[in-house]
């Protein structure tokens, strides 16, 4: 018997309350009783009962009204109506109001046992469903967004905040930082996650095809349009529309897009029927849209329409602590894919990766590791497997001072001459770093 379920018996007859509570206690359920609707509601507000059995005829508020009140408090509560043969019509009304089932009094012992067992199964199924949904949700969160840096954790926190809403999101980030992954994370944690995320790579679609791609077209709309075709707006009904590289769309399309974003209504190319679609927009760009607005390259009204919630993904060079985690992730990923035994990253290779600025961000790191797995042998990625081996293996300096000077220059360049961050990376304080800069006469590039 399911000992985790609680049952409330609501009946004005003491003998019925006693009989039923004893019956359910013998089955191992937690049981409480109430003599009228008022007492029942008080108990339901104070404690969550999984199943409530209600006699349809109660003094004061009747069982039908009590059922409706219980459903208003907690829709998941299973309500079973007990009725005499004469009031089956009322029981049917209760079912329409959301009651789970009804039994006619007096009922066969078997009937009540079956109803309660079915209700228990139903509760168990919804519990399993919820836990499955949670598992899917958490899997999505943890699996493909790698990083423990403050920067990436802040991005994930923003994802969490905005995911539950329906607001338009704009994701800024350099090429290769993983803007589409962040868009997917928002979508997969949103109430729209059970529908697909429809992606439009704006930069990859020719201007002439863009309209048909977004709005769809009717048969015969243009030469070669043999059949009608759904556009991305239509396909994203109930889902999320991800517009990647939004900065590349033409001024004409910007006007069209603004109109659709505001009304969620549009017409297929060559059609005259207005269609409606309920989609949420997430867009991404590697360009500064505000600068484009100032330069007259991007419509201001569209910019403000899109810029409801903004997420900035920091470039990889600003979160070097993620390089190790990402490298290890890609080593495992590609070694498994290529059926190779590579599992580790050598010390010198790891150091070289850590010192590299990665202008192509995570995508570049991924490609470097993939290449290293292809050409490498053994279980460890070596420095020689990485394309910048020659830079690291042939130093032009000889003395320790030379080495120190070059290292400080490299770190200062890496951190864009941010003295605090460079000092932290070098493991010295700011005063020491300033004195070294002075000592080696290192100059900031103009």
């Amino acid at each position, binding site marked *: *018997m399911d000992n985790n379920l609680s049952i409330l018996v609501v*009946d004005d*007859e003491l*003998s*019925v309350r*006693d*009989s*039923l509570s*004893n*019956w359910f*206690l*013998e*089955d*191992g359920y937690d049981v409480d009783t109430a003599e009228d609707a008022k007492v029942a509601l008080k108990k339901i507000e104070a404690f969550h009962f999984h199943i409530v059995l209600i006699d349809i005829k109660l003094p004061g508020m009747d069982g039908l009204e009590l059922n409706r009140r219980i459903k208003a408090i907690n829709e998941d509560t299973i309500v079973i109506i*007990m009725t005499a043969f004469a009031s089956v019509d009322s029981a049917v009304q209760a079912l329409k109001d959301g009651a789970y089932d009804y039994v006619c*009094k*007096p*009922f*066969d*012992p*078997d009937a*009540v*046992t079956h109803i309660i067992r079915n209700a228990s199964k139903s509760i168990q199924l919804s519990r399993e469903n919820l836990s499955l949904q949670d598992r899917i949700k958490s899997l999505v969160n943890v699996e493909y967004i790698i990083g423990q840096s403050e920067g990436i954790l802040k991005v994930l926190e923003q994802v969490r905040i905005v995911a539950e809403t329906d607001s338009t999101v704009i994701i800024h980030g350099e090429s290769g930082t993983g803007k589409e992954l962040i868009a997917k994370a928002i979508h997969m944690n949103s109430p729209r996650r059970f529908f697909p995320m429809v992606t439009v790579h704006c930069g990859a679609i020719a201007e002439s095809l863009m309209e048909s791609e977004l709005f769809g077209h009717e048969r015969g709309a243009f030469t070669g349009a043999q059949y009608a075709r759904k556009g991305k707006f239509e396909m994203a009904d109930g889902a999320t529309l991800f517009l990647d590289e939004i900065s590349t769309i033409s001024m004409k399309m910007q006007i069209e897009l603004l109109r659709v974003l505001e009304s969620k209504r549009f017409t297929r190319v060559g059609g005259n029927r207005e269609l409606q679609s309920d989609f949420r927009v997430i867009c991404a760009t590697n360009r500064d849209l505000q600068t484009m607005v100032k330069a007259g390259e991007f419509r201001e009204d569209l910019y403000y329409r899109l810029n409801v919630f903004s997420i900035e993904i920091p470039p990889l060079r600003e979160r070097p602590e993620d390089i190790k985690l990402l490298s290890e992730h890609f080593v495992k990923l590609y070694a498994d894919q290529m059926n190779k035994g590579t599992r580790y990253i050598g010390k010198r290779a790891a150091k070289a990766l850590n010192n590299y600025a990665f202008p192509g961000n995570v995508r570049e790191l991924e490609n470097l590791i993939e290449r290293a797995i292809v050409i490498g042998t053994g279980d460890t990625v070596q420095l020689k497997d990485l394309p910048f081996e020659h830079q690291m293996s042939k130093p032009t300096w000889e003395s320790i001072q030379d080495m120190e000077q070059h290292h400080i220059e490299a770190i200062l360049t890496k951190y864009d001459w941010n003295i605090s961050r460079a000092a932290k990376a070098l493991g010295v304080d700011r005063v020491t770093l300033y004195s070294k800069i002075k000592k080696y006469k290192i100059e900031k590039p103009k």
Partner: protein
Amino acid sequence: MPLIRIIPLQFSSVSTMETMLSVLSNRFKMETRLSGQHLDLTPFFNPVRSQYNANEIIQKLLPLAGEDDKIVGVTDLDLFIPVLSYIFGQAYLGGSVALVSGHRLENRRYGLASDPQIFSDRIIKCIVHELGHTFGLKHCLKPGCVMVSTTYVEEMDQKSDMFCQTCQNELSMLTA
């Protein structure tokens, strides 16, 4: 010394009594006696349902039980509790009184030839089950255990008059 006392209340199958006493004494490790006490059940008859109200009979039997004693009323009459159309037996969890009816355990009620052995088996299982409740045992899901909940005689024939190991252990703990 706590006792189990069986009170026949308009119960005709006297031949089953000896086996009944022996099985109960064995299952509960308690002295079990036949009681000569009498209770008139006429006031508990419900003419609308043509049945006897088990809850009311139990209330009437309560004062007859000593502090640690258990009482089992056994009858041929058809029993009900207000919300159910019939019952084989009734007892309160951790209470001191159980009531069992042989009315619906008779093969004759199902169009079959009477079989005293089957009847005896069924009523003993029913008494052990209800007495189990008075000691605090709940329904069990292990097939064959006497504490399995049964609402049809066919189901009752599937189980034994023995406790499963889990129920036996629990009973030992509850009676220790």
